[in-house]
């Protein structure tokens, strides 16, 4: 695999574990030992690991709130401009001002939800740095089982304690430890 310039020669050290429990233990231990630049890989989300490794603030809820409110406001403003300002038409004797707001609530709500849902989806994808079809971890042998039935912990080269990573992983019960190349 091609090597990236101006970066450490390796991406990190990857340890493979045979069960979610083993991985969870390893992660807890690594965290306790002070490893920070690390990531776990599993075929399904494991709550304890996510809480340990994942960012405290995922950023998604904030996005959803902001976009939801913007969408709702946009929906309401669009309707009020159309119905009251741009071309006010007498429709069944209904008031042509804010008094008649209830009729505009459904669309306001839907616009808010739509916008929020887009924010949640694309916020998650974007913040996760996806799409990234290429990633160094894919170079690890046996990593294709990470989406099936294998559990991995990768300590990245940028971690200050990277030097002892390999030893730590073996000690933590990894069945296999490999170097992750760029």
């Amino acid at each position, binding site marked *: 695999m091609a090597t990236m310039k101006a970066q450490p020669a390796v991406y990190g050290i990857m340890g493979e574990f045979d069960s979610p429990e083993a991985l969870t233990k390893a992660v807890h231990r690594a965290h306790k030992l002070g490893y920070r630049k690390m990531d776990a890989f599993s075929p399904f989300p494991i709550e304890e690991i996510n809480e340990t490794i994942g960012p405290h603030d995922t950023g998604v809820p904030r996005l959803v709130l902001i976009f939801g409110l913007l969408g709702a406001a946009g929906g309401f403003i669009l309707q009020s401009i159309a119905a009251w300002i741009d071309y006010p*038409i*007498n*429709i*069944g*004797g*209904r*008031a042509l001002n804010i*008094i008649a707001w209830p009729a505009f609530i459904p669309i306001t709500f839907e616009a808010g939800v739509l916008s929020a849902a887009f924010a949640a989806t694309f916020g998650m994808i974007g913040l996760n740095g996806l799409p990234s079809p290429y990633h160094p971890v894919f170079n690890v042998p046996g990593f294709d089982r990470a989406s099936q039935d294998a559990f991995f912990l990768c300590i990245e080269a940028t971690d200050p304690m990277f030097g002892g990573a390999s030893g730590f992983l073996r000690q933590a019960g990894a069945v296999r430890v490999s170097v992750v190349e760029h």
Partner: protein
Amino acid sequence: MTTNSNNTSLDLNAIRARLSGSQGQQLWRSLDELADTDEFRELVEREFPQGAAEMTDPVSRRTFLKLMGASLALAGISGCTYQPRQYIAPYANAPAGWVPNVPVFYASTFVLNGYGSGVLVKSLESRPIKIEGNAAHPASLGATDVFAQASLLTMYDPDRSQLVLKNGQASTWEDFTAELQNALSVQETSQGAGLRILTETVTSPTMADQLNQLLTTYPRAKWYQYEPVNRTNSHKGAQLAFGEDVDTLYDFSQTKVVVSLDADFMSPGPGYVPYSRAFTNGRKVSEEHREMNRLYVVESTPSTTGATADHRIPLQAHKIDSFARTLAQRLGVGSAAGAEFTEHEEKMLDVIARDLEEHRGANVVLVGEHQPPELHALVHAINDALGNVGSTVNYIEPVEVRPADHYVDIADLTSEINAGLVEMLVIIGGNPVFNAPADLRFDEQLESVNFSVHLSLYVDETSSLATWHIPAAHFLESWSDARAFDGTASLVQPLIEPLYAGKTVHEIFAEMLGQSDQSNYEIVQTYWQSQLDAPFEEAWHNALSLGLFDGTASPVKTVTLQGSAVGEFVASESEGIEVVFRPDPSIWDGSFANNGWLQELPKPQTKLTWDNAALMSPHTAIGVLGLNIADPNNPTINDYEGLALSNGQMIDLDYRGGKLRIPVWITPGMPEDSITLYLGYGRSKAGRVGDGVGFNTYALRTSDAPWFGSGAEVTNAGERYSLVSTQDHWILEDRDASIYRVGNLKEFAHDPEYLKHEIHHEEFGDAEHEQFSLHPNAVYKYNAWGVVINLNACNGCNVCVIACQAENNIPVVGKAQVAVGREMHWLRIDRYYSGDFDNPATYLQPMACYQCEQAPCEVVCPVAATNHDREGINNMVYNRCVGTKYCSNNCPYKVRRFNFIQYTDIESPSLKLMYNPDVTVRNRGVMEKCTYCVQRISAARIEAKERAVQQGDPEYIIEDGAIVMACEAACPTEAITFGDLNNPESRVSKLRAEPINYGVLTELNTKPRTTYLARINNPNAELETE
């Protein structure tokens, strides 16, 4: 270039101005030039191949429409706003004073059964596009009947005959005249011994003059008249009563009591509009005017007149004679009939007699044309005895040129043909092969005549058996004249050159008289030149602009009653079931069979369209069809509802040697053991619209019993037929207070507000109740249009429906579409029965878009295609409509109409000429509805605005009455009033302030702009308890 250059434009608004106005214009030039071009001919012939009506596989127009819809659909998808290149073809030489796109009105005369009534024809760019009544004409008073309105469509009918035919083969006028001259030269030698002329009823002075000349030239020739609907019985009755021919005129304006003996004086016929109007004016009540006349109707078929009655007695037609005789006897005329009546009928007789006695000289007794001459004579005697003659009943010289017994005439002609006496037969109009009495077998006889000519609008049943067929000119294409019911001579004036080179009767007669150099116009003008003594030019102009010759009404005649007037009562045999014939309310005697507007017009009582049926009462149907009803003597409402499902059951009628299989239509209010058959259906050569529609009831009609007779054998044929009506439900389901309010005069006179109180009390428990709304009250600062419909004036005659159809380009959808509930009439007349189904009260309610101020339809439209304008009209914007149909669902009145498929014929070139250019022609997929004739409002507003700005007036004013909706204009009884609600002085504002004014379903808070004046009946106090 035409020589018919004397024509005067007629402006509705200023009668004076039009006299001094333009002259010598040829306003229909562009079109007739178009029609004369070879291209147009070719187009017409390609589109409507001659003999299309004879195709063995008739492509009905409805199928046609469907196919067209398909081709259009794709066009609709591709062609949005990118328009194809169009061309403008201006006049080469515009007529002086011509203003483009501004309609002009011409006065003319519509003729039905010989009797004329004045019309004003709206012409735009030389095309007649709408027929209105002529207010200056005594028979019109500004209104029309359904046939006058619909005759516009007949003129443009692409199925009309377009070629001279000899034995069915295309020929030419020149060939015809040559052969005609040959035949005549033979006749000359025998003084016309072999020449017979058969016409319909003739009142036309010009035609009379020509006939006179013909009979002088050929002294041994004979002139016969036959028409299935005629006034033979009246004339014979007058002969019996007075020994001379007189016509009767009624003056309803002062009557207090009217007794109609099977007389449907509020349906088309001589005097229709003036009688309806005068009678109805006597029934319009208001807070100030708390009086009205009273109408008793004894009738054999439910009619518009019967629906208006305060008391109605259904009676078999043959029993009406004895009823009248018993009544006469109680009034001191003649002797009792010796017939037996039910208790109720006896009481009615007493009460009617007393009521008549109490109002001597202020009542009218009428008898229907269908009743025998003896009864007519008796009624003359009754009116005489009641002192009505000279006040409410007047006699005039007969209007007809020669009052004839049509049945005798046609019978004589047939026997003469049979005897080989007829060598040459000229049939002017009519369709005797189809409608002559069945026992005469006229069709078989006609074929044996060597030289027969038939002049008619269509290649019909008679034309196809005659040697020669000559296409006739429509009245909108002809110069002619006719007399009205009161004798007024009226002028028929063309609006357009004959579309299909039709000829008028005058041209045929002129040809026969060797005066072929005279044009149609010259013939009529020459005749009148000899009649008018004043400076001719001025009198002629006057006639052209008014549509009539002033002072030509027949003078009142004094008559003396003959002793023989009160004849002896002859007990008529009354075995079996009685059969009654009536001209069809929609297509009359069959001559309008190819008129889609009329075919689709729901008949006033039955709401049937596209068919005729055997009308019978529920009880009769139970017997005839052998229905299984638990207690036939006391059927429940559910039984009747179930009965309605028997509509369309076929029966076999065996009557006087004729046999007919016809479906049943159960009609509440029919007398027992009686069947009414409408004439005119079952045409085989009417055209693509009328062919094969309905059942030919002429097959049962014989010359000795043209209107009714007993002894019909009826059997259930065990088949079903699909009859289509626009309203299946009979009753109001206890919704009277919301929908149709009825009160009576006595209580109204006591307290005009009583109905309101009663209903409010019933509904809300207190007398006053203000509707509460969360929505702001919209302010209408300009005009606020509104309509009030007087239910006391509406008799359901349908003229408004047809007028609306003509004005607003409303398409005809065909039977199959009506069957699934897709009729397109913007204005419909709802009919409800109330009370006893053997003799129910019939409620009729015209209903169109109410222009609700808080319209439920508007709120639900997702594209704002229907919304309110600042004059309070619910605007339906066709081009914005995407067709969700939600508006119709949410309309509590269901007055919206949807183009489910492509209904409008936008292919036929002649129909394209007919459409009102001021109203969008709707294509498939859009909703439509009444607009209060917004094109008329718009025109009036623009005119008022322009006038105001030109005169520097600060504001424009639209006078009350300056805008007249099409339905309003056509209404014979002036039941509909349109106007500005913001103007407290307008008629509509005043009507709306009446205590009996109410809106339909106002509890829904729709705030309708159209409201009704409740129906007020005037029942006799003695009968009220029942």
